[in-house]
């Protein structure tokens, strides 16, 4: 496992506010790390320090083993970065902008041309090559920012909310692009969209108030969810009491919650005592009492809930 991105004890304060308070992380080749957290948690600040844009108060960051503050030029050649909002020079055409980036990256002549062609193809920019960037749609602007970052095929990619504000098709396209590139790169993407973590990330780091509060695969995070493995069911309203009684007395059920009452039905949720309860067992309990069930499914737990649970502990375990 080759570690390509390493941050050690990053701290940054802005006046009285501790924006980043001791973040350390490692990302290996082949990993896509999702940076999760509410707005203002310190995601962008951390990325700015890892890319060497912002000097930390203490701590260090290394890209492919090169310290970004000791040898900034060497380190900066090894990553591509999409800053928040994917800024680019709006008065230029897509082609001119990418040429500029390619030149700065040290490409000339035929190589410059082939690099641009490849980035354009990967980001799907052919239709807007000769348009002024300011006149492009938000989706295309994002992709210009993305093309700029992958132009030199860097071993490390760092993207700050790459899909923010895109429509579902565009999001899908960007995620596909990230997945395609994932195998031979180390990638960090920040997001507050949780499906994104499930869709593309091999690992997720949740940060809140400048600190890492959780680190694991998307699946790990789901496991930690209160309702993971709970069974939700829908019964007709007048049999609800009977259903609750039957389920509460079943051995594998810890407790039963009522969730809602849509259209003369009652939505119930059976919380398991252990993580091994199956929907078949629940169905069997109800069938024994002759209670008809309209719907029955196992909750996977929603990442949104995990997110709230981790980042807003003061809300407790109330219904999410």
């Amino acid at each position, binding site marked *: 496992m080759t570690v390509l991105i390493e941050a050690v004890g990053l701290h940054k304060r802005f006046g009285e506010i501790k924006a980043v308070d001791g973040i350390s992380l490692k990302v290996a080749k082949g990993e896509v790390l999702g940076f999760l957290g509410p707005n203002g948690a310190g995601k962008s600040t951390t990325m700015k320090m890892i890319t060497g844009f912002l000097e930390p108060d203490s701590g260090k960051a290394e890209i492919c083993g090169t310290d970004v503050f000791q040898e900034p*030029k060497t380190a*900066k050649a090894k990553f591509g*970065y999409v*800053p928040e909002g994917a800024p680019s*020079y709006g*008065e*230029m055409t897509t082609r001119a902008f990418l040429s500029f980036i390619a030149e*700065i990256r040290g490409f000339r002549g035929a190589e410059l041309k082939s690099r641009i062609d490849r980035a354009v193809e990967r980001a799907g920019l052919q239709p807007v090559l000769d348009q002024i960037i300011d006149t492009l749609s938000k989706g295309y602007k994002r992709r210009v920012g993305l093309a700029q970052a992958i132009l030199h095929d860097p071993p490390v990619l760092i993207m700050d909310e790459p899909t923010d504000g895109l429509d579902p098709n565009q999001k899908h396209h960007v995620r596909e692009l990230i997945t395609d590139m994932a195998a031979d790169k180390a990638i960090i993407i920040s997001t507050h969209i949780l499906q994104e973590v499930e869709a593309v990330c091999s690992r997720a780091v949740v940060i809140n108030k400048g600190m890492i509060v959780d680190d694991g695969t998307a699946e790990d995070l789901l496991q930690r969810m209160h309702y993971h493995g709970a069974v939700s069911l829908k019964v007709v309203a007048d049999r609800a009491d009977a259903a609750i009684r039957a389920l509460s007395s079943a051995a594998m059920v810890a407790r039963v919650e009522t969730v809602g009452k849509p259209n003369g039905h009652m939505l119930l949720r059976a919380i398991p005592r252990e993580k091994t309860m199956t929907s078949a067992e629940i169905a069997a309990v109800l069938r024994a009492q002759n209670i008809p069930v309209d719907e029955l499914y196992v909750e996977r737990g929603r990442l949104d809930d995990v997110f709230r649970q981790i980042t807003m502990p003061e809300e407790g375990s109330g219904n999410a």
Partner: protein
Amino acid sequence: MRNTWDNAWIIAKRELRAYFATPLALVFLTVFVALTGALTFYVGQFFQRGQADLFPFFAYHPWLYLLLVPAVAMRLWAEERKSGTIELLMTLPITPFEAILGKFLAAWAFIGLALILTFPIWITVNLLGSPDNGVIFTSYLGSFLMAGAFLAIGSFVSTLTKNQVIAFIVASLICFLFTMSGLDLVQNSLRAWTPAVFSSAVSSLSFLTHFQRIAQGVLDLPTLIFFFSMIVFWLFATVIAIDQKKAQ
């Protein structure tokens, strides 16, 4: 070192292209040429003087630069900061100095172009009489140097704000102080309550004092050193300011 110039050149090319992406550049050039003409012929009384030189043309350059150079300089960094492209620029494999140098050189070249476009005045004076073209050439060179010093101040001020209007006003103000500091008006009030060393030090920082010699065709070593060290000083101030301010 070669690499530094390469990168600065790539940045400068991009900047220059950006100037001409909008009609603003052409408006600026037109205004510059029109104003130099108007000042020379009407205010400077070029014809009435009856002398074959360009003294009335060059004499107004400091005052013209006071408004026009900060207008060129204001966008250098304020715009990068406002649009967020500074984050892109500063995470590319270049040093801040290369970026600053590139942008400065582009703006300087642009003002150089504006100066070159005033050539009809030079043709006019050559048609009307036989001026000392050596003096005129020296004055052009000196004027260009002075523009560079104004521009370096503007570049520094532009890093301090995201607002181009504020950058413009503050840069004009600082340039104004540097221009005025040699005038009797300022000098007399300084001499009244400061030691002579101080007032002459302030006077020696005056663009006007140095430029008056240039307008007469004298470009001597102290003047050269003065303008070059002004440029170097303010560009380094820009490097420091960028380092401090880029992420805010």
